């Protein structure tokens, strides 16, 4: 998993009934990773429809997280009626603008917002199963401590560490553990939330 810093990207506003406006600051470093959060109606097939928007254009998703949304401003949402999706994908600016619009065009998508480059709170959880022989154990635990990771499983030859952090920090954590021999790695995918009054 490559180390990357989030480049600043485009920001879109789409109001119904108005033409889209766009403010952008672009760093041309490497193909940017964009994170899009969607508020969708929890109907069967909504995930498929969202994925098709990407796959039709040949784009791959880096991560995708879906879970029930608890509250939706401005509606009397019943529990389970809405879900939030957080999708991380790569793509250039023009492609991304089209993708956001095509996502918003879906009947079951209430809104899709590109949060790339914005000051959002993001978080991800990783479970790492490592080979942990007697000699390596201390070092592994030291790394775990500095990343505030916890030990979820302690076996004779292996150990499972659980770490929750921002995506970039998690990338570093995993990179540091690689030399010990990672047996399995499962990441939860990135979730995010906008700060203050901004909607996610």
């Amino acid at each position: 998993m490559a180390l990357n810093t989030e480049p600043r990207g485009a920001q879109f506003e789409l109001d119904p009934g108005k033409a889209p406006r766009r403010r952008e600051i672009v760093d041309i470093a490497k193909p940017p990773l964009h994170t899009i959060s969607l508020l969708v109606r929890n109907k069967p097939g909504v995930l498929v429809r969202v994925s098709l928007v990407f796959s039709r254009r040949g784009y791959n998703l880096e991560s995708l997280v879906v879970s029930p949304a608890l509250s939706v401003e401005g509606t009397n949402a019943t529990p389970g009626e809405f879900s939030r999706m957080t999708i991380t994908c790569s793509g250039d600016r023009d492609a991304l603008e089209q993708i956001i619009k095509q996502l918003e065009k879906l009947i079951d998508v209430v809104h899709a917002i590109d949060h790339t480059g914005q000051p959002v709170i993001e978080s991800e959880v990783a479970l790492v199963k490592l080979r942990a022989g007697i000699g390596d154990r201390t070092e592994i635990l030291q790394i775990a401590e500095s990343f505030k990771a916890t030990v979820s499983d302690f076996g004779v030859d292996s150990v499972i560490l659980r770490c929750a952090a921002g995506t970039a920090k998690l990338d570093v954590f995993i990179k540091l553990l690689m030399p010990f021999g990672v047996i399995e790695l499962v990441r939860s995918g990135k979730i995010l939330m906008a700060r203050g009054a901004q909607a996610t």
Partner: protein
Amino acid sequence: MLTKATSGGDIVIQCLEREGVEVVYGYSGGAAMPIFDALVDSKIKFVLVRHEQGATHMADGYARASGKPGVVLVTSGPGATNCVTGLLTALMDSVPMIVLTGQTITSMLGKDAFQEADVTGITYPVVKHSYLVKNADDIPRIMREAFHIATTGRPGPVLIDLPKDITQGPCSAPLVETVDLPGYHVPGRPDPALLHKTAGLMAKSRKPVLYVGHGAVIADAGKAILELATKLNAPIVNTLLGKGACAEDHPLNLGMLGMHGTAYANRAVEHCDLIVAIGARWDDRITGKLSEFCPDAVKIHIDIDVAEFNKVVRPDVSLAADARLAIEELVPLVDALDTADWLKEIAGWRKQYPLRYPKKGGLRAQHVLDRLDQLGGRDCIITTDVGQHQMWAAQFCLTTKHRHWISSGGAGTMGFGFPAAIGAAMATGTPVWAIVGDGGFQMTLCELATAKLQKVPVKILIINNSYLGMIRQWQELFFDNRISGADLEGNPDFIKLAAAYDIPGRRVTRAGDVDKAINWAMAYNDGPCLIEAEVVKDDNVFPMIPAGAPLSGMIVEKPKTKMEKPSGST
């Protein structure tokens, strides 16, 4: 008398009646039987077709001719999958359509039951929206939502998958009036600030062009656009599907633009300094090579679908609105432009590059279509199939009335023309000419039975060159005349074929016989009739802008030197 409890199927039919549906096209099958049973007691007319594809195209033609949604009812499995092409055709051309498909019982979903198919899964990319009904009480809400989605904003097909136990079992839910769709927004009135910006940009233009597409037909914006054009003194060009929004015989109308559009329409677009897209989407057939398309012209895009802005072209103003409302509000904000020189230049191009065809050397499709146009074609609805005949019909059959031109544009579906004509005739009662090629006609000719039964005044004009003409043309121009997969040997005797369905037919082989045949068909309105025109086998459609070439790469006759293979798509 035993009163039947209301079943899901009964409610489906009641909802259709509530929505004002008068005709349903379809084909029966096991999984849809409860709905078919409910149809018996309904005043809705059911048209039993001969292939589900025909049903979808009939509903499509019905919708395009009337503006009301077309409705299809088919069974599960292969019945539903036979509708995929029709759904694609409707989606690409923004046609309101409701497709009801039967489905296996809910407990057998996903278990490879008889005639079971994952219809919602198969059709996700070819519908505007779709539903799989799992609870009979959802039916009224779903039906209302489906009609709302299909007919508002940018229209499109909506599919409703109805399992047999749902339609057979009881349903006690009341019909609903309102919809709650938080994720669905439809732009209405335009933003006044953007309108003023548009008017300001227009005021600076000396070479404007109004580029009119299907959205103008759907919004019935033709009258407003003509008002705008005459006020500005700006010429109009229309897309294949924009034909009929503004009368093509108006002096300011330059006809169709694009790959096989008129030379003067393309020249006007090539040299304009302002182009206003009204309900059009800058399709690749229109723009040619994008990097060289109107690089210095100001572009205004008026569209009801926000996703079309910046998709192909970056406009200077993107106006999200209903086309008619936008133009109506724009007219008072603009003044006449100084376009005398521009219009003179365009008149010069018209004289330099008229649409023309050889008068000698055998019967030409262009001659047949030209005569049809002169002998009352403009009062009839014209549908076409796909291919060379479609392009010639677009060039020579001028559309002067709203919703009098029906053709598969975005999808280019062969087999569309004839069933669409049946739907259009049933929707309006107006006589319809279905201009088809020998290739496309054979794809859906089984509907001759349907046409005969419904006694529709459809005149089938088969432009028979025994080839897939458009393919042959491309192979002649770009592939060293290596003909591959374009030779239609073994065509039947179309007159005998029609007679087998008890449909009268005439064959035309000479230019001199054309008028008589057309007049005969115009007078025969007791049902369908057929004219087969045996035309020159190796004719080419000109002008032509090869795919991926810029507008300046337009050719008006076959070049003497060999041409490069086109870089654009298809």
